[in-house]
């Protein structure tokens, strides 16, 4: 990915010139990490109903992409959606409230982890059907186009969604109609408990290209590389030049969901290697320090994030459940 190498270099310079946006990215990534660790803790301490799919390890993808978006750009997300939601700007407390089924949650506790959405920032929601939002994101792009705005739509999905025919139907129309949609494939190597190599024939990049959609592989652990690729794709969309496809190679540090603790389908060595050498947050911290950012700032951010997350959990734990009468509300608008 030599090209991305060059791009990263350019970004690194930009970073040296003005580290502020990257400090913001650092804060977001760190927020996601701490948020997810908290979620894991809530599950293990039996304070959270159901399960959750943690995004820890993949932070650079959501943050690198969302940095290229405006608040009014659209986003669709997956069962592993906390990171996308936070990266688009959602607040920690209302997210925790949603995960705990509280009325203060983004969906009044009715959606939960797998359906978390943030309407104020055009996050159209997480989706518990693998690949289920390919049409929705493409339709949001269609809508932006029809309404004459320059909004774009980002469709996040895991590489497992490459198994769903819907994605190809949607990409075909996005390409035919030059819709401003960016398909972001988060390749974390596993569909649940099965290696993607056992489920995916041919070359990943060839899939979108077969529909005339430019596609690009990106190091999903390097937020600079992700952002550079995303910015290009977003500009292309805003220009009306049509859809793009990004394949971000990444890794989930936790199991498929919080209950997946033995993880027999992958080795501890593989996990250690990714955690130790490919942690997107450490990598960004490295860039920032190289750029001469004062380590104290990173520490301060870390403390602020931890406080925010702690406050968020406390808020959610104390927040009230929805009133029973809510059960039959919002079935119909």
């Amino acid at each position, binding site marked *: 990915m030599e090209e991305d190498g060059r791009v990263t270099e350019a970004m690194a310079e930009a970073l040296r010139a003005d580290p502020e946006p990257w400090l913001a990215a650092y804060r977001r990534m760190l927020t996601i990490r701490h948020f997810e660790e908290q979620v894991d803790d809530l599950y293990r301490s039996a304070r959270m109903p159901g399960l959750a799919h943690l995004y820890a390890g993949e932070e650079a993808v959501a943050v690198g992409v969302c940095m290229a978006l405006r608040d009014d750009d*659209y986003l*669709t997300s997956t069962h592993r959606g906390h990171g996308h939601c936070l990266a688009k700007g959602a607040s920690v407390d209302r997210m925790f409230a949603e995960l705990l089924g509280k009325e203060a*949650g*983004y*969906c*009044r*506790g*009715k*959606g939960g982890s797998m*359906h978390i*959405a943030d*309407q104020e920032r*055009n996050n*159209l*929601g997480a*989706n518990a*059907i693998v690949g*289920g*939002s*390919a*049409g*929705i*994101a*493409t*339709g*949001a*792009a*269609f*809508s*932006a186009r*029809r*309404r004459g705005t320059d909004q774009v*739509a980002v469709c996040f999905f895991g590489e497992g969604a490459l198994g769903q*025919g*819907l994605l190809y*139907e*949607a990409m*075909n*129309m996005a390409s*035919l109609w030059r819709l401003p949609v960016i398909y972001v494939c988060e390749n974390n190597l596993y569909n649940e408990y099965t290696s993607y190599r056992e489920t995916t024939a041919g070359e990943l990049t060839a899939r979108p290209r077969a529909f005339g959609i430019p596609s690009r592989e990106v190091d999903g652990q390097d937020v600079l590389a992700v952002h550079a690729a995303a910015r290009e794709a977003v500009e292309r969309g805003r220009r009306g030049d049509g859809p793009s496809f990004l394949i971000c190679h990444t890794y989930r540090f936790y199991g498929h969901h919080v209950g997946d603790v033995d993880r027999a389908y992958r080795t501890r060595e593989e996990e250690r290697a990714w955690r130790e050498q490919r942690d997107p947050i450490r990598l960004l911290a490295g860039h920032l320090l190289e750029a001469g950012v004062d380590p104290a700032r990173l520490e301060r951010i870390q403390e602020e994030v931890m406080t925010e997350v702690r406050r968020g959990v406390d808020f959610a734990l104390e927040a009230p459940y929805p009133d029973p009468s809510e059960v039959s*509300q*919002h*079935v*119909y*608008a």
Partner: protein
Amino acid sequence: MSTPSAAVGTREITLGQAIKEALAEELRRDPTVFVMGEDVAEAGTAFKVLTGLVDEFGPERVIDTPISEAGFTGIGLGAAMTGLRPVVDIMFGDFLTLVMDQLVNQAAKVHYMSGGKLKAPLVVRTTLGATRRSAAQHSQSLHAWVSHVPGLKVALPSTPYDAKGLLKTAIRDDNPVVIFEDKMNYQQRGPVPEGEYTIPFGVADIKRPGEDVTIVATSSMVLAALEAAEQLAREGISAEVVDPRTTVPLDEETLVRSAIKTSRVIVVDEGYERYGLTAELASVITAGAFYHLDAPVKRIGAMHVPIPFSPVLEDLTVPNAAAIVEAARELCGRR
């Protein structure tokens, strides 16, 4: 019966024309409305119902799609969630099998799952009805499936008047609505006022008043029921024909009231009888009128077989006027 009196400015048009009028009026009224589906533009749909629509509104608002029902229903949903009002065309109701996920797991649940913050004003137009000699994969009436799903509304127009009024209401509704058209009745004529009107959902229509027996009939079966009522009248049996018009919401009150009045009820629907519409309608009526009923509600639905191609067989599988007359005579002790 709520079809217009022969008032000034009422003409006879076909069901197909009524549907095109409804779409044209809504496309004119609201720039966010658009139509999308296979061969809806130049070809004006496989049933030639939308002929000419693209000439007035252009290919930006009357859009031909690839043969990707799930894909364009999903795109319609995304558009609906972001400020547009799509009318998605699913050529044959049998193809609903391909869009169930987008319709049921996505469209129907978006509003609820988001705590009321997202909306999906999506209309899916599709067809039902057999005897077109189209065989097992192009003849089903699958409206029971979507009626079973909370979050969806379901309309079943039986006349040109109802078709126009219900489709306009569907387009203006903020929820996903599936509207089924009887593919065999596109040429059926009926009175439709010149002027603007809509028909509220959840209001049944008494297509013919009567005293002795209630025939609750949907969509394609309303004509059969009216034909049966004619025949029964000649035999001295006064049949009331009630058309629910929408299954969700359902006007339980009107159904039950008629049942209490006549004390004898037949429910007719072209969908499969088992686990289908007739079961729900019969149960609702029985629950509401049990102590007034002379006999159990008689259900008449399609035979529990895939629809055969051979005309001599196909005609046996769907309910008709004769079967309704039979049932009515029996209920009224006329044999």
